[in-house]
């Protein structure tokens, strides 16, 4: 095999592994979320399908496959069908630049545990997430239903506003690492958990947590699908597998922001204490990364079990008048620190 063919083969294998890992993680996440929410509310949750209810995601998948596909009257047929595809595509695309571990050497060849190691990795994620809003907007607009339209409008306003804060929360981290490459940002945090960015960029971290929650439409910012006032928001008219695709996009987005958060604020594949990086002779990078990502995912479920939905005007007020100024101030202070203290 020539070198190019080998490169291509490695790339294809990476894509397949990460794509399927995300699919499994998504379906398992729906189960984990329902069970954990149930425990938080003194219920049991789904526990009948298989041991501990573990086969519930599979049963749900089969059920959704056999449901009827509904097409609302007066809907814009092509856009209605395209919307879930757009949502899923943008959700999966951003995972392409997220590293799952440090570089490993296989048979004398260095392999990075990410699909594409772009030198503008973090900007790429920002670009793709700014496209993600179109899936929801299309879904809301094309269904010819006032509730879905309201949901779509809310989501475009919300995601647009919080995207700004999300991007600004990364700038401090980028300045500290002086690189857009996510691998470099992780490497810049080496040397123990007190050097991770959630310590040195604490304000940026807080802004990121709030903005990311709003960006993926999770409680307390799940206004695009507020069921008490909008029935189901932008996905009211969807059924069967198209509904499943919209759900999948949502969960994959949640997994993505967790993975990015773990990478840029919690040192990615680095161990909290350098001695724990390879205690048994081999690198535990992937394990550390997965642990951090799981903690972030748990945090999202915990939020959903704890907080109530905010009001729409409060959401916009908070985004523009609190989050953006705080993030900007953080950039100013970080820039001063980088210039004068280094």
């Amino acid at each position, binding site marked *: 095999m020539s070198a190019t063919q080998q490169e291509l083969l490695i790339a294809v294998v990476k894509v397949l592994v990460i794509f399927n890992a995300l699919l499994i993680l998504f379906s398992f996440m729906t189960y984990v979320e329902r069970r954990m929410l149930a425990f938080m509310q003194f219920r049991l949750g789904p526990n009948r399908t298989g041991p501990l209810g573990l086969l519930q995601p599979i049963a749900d998948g089969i059920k959704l496959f056999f449901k009827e596909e509904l097409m609302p009257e007066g809907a814009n047929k092509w*856009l209605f069908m395209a919307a879930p595809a757009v949502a899923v595509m943008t959700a999966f695309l951003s995972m392409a630049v997220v590293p799952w571990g440090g570089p490993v050497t296989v048979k004398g060849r260095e392999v990075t545990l990410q699909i594409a190691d*772009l*030198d*503008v990795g973090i*900007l*790429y994620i*920002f*670009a*793709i997430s*700014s*496209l993600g*809003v*179109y899936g929801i*907007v*299309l879904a*809301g*607009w094309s269904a010819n239903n006032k509730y879905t*339209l309201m949901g*779509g*409008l809310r989501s*475009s*306003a919300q995601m*647009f506003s919080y*995207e700004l804060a999300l991007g600004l929360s990364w700038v401090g981290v980028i300045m500290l690492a002086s690189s*857009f490459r996510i691998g470099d940002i992780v490497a810049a945090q080496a040397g123990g958990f007190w050097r991770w960015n959630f310590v040195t960029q604490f304000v940026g971290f807080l802004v990121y947590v709030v903005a990311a929650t709003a960006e993926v439409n999770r409680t307390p910012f799940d206004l695009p699908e507020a069921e008490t006032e909008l029935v189901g928001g932008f996905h009211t008219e969807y059924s069967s597998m198209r509904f499943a695709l919209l759900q999948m996009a949502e969960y994959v987005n949640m997994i993505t922001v967790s993975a990015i958060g773990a990478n840029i604020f919690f040192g990615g594949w680095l161990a909290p204490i350098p001695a724990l990086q390879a205690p048994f002779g081999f690198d535990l990078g992937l394990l550390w990364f997965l642990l951090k990502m799981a903690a972030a995912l748990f945090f999202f479920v915990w939020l959903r079990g704890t907080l109530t939905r905010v009001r729409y005007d409060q959401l916009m007020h908070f985004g523009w008048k609190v989050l953006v100024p705080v993030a900007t101030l953080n950039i100013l202070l970080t820039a001063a620190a980088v210039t004068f203290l280094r």
Partner: protein
Amino acid sequence: MSLDAILFYVFAAVAVLSAVVVVAQRNPTYSAFALIVTMASLAGIFGLLGSPLIAVLQVIVYAGAIMVLFVFVLMLLNVQEERRIEGGSPAFRWTAVGLGGLLAVQVTVVLLRATRDGPAWAAGFDASARKVAQVLFSAQYVYVFEATSILIVAALVGALTLARRTGK
């Protein structure tokens, strides 16, 4: 054909076709979404040319930020299909034909030059984020760059002032 060439033709075809849809389509919402597709395919071409930074900025600024506002307004006003205006003054039509002809001539000249002289990029220039920043903040461009940012801030303040004016 190499992989790059195939990808280039795919992106180019998508960009041109969706650009045609932008103009030919009567429904403004379709036009807006077609324009997003055009921007995204252009970003793909920039990426193929070895400049991921420009590609990513293209998506963030045009396909993301600007088009989201377009789509938002179109949805908010619930714009319906455009109707063709009957008649119209012949002067207007002939001006359009003249300007269109001028554009066609310009494009032809550029294409002819490009086929004669070969590609126009500077040899050895890599368009990485670091390199672009170094050029942008060099003594040659930094004042222009800063002047642009002041202009944008001024426009922002102007928009705010207009939006805050009540009544009257």
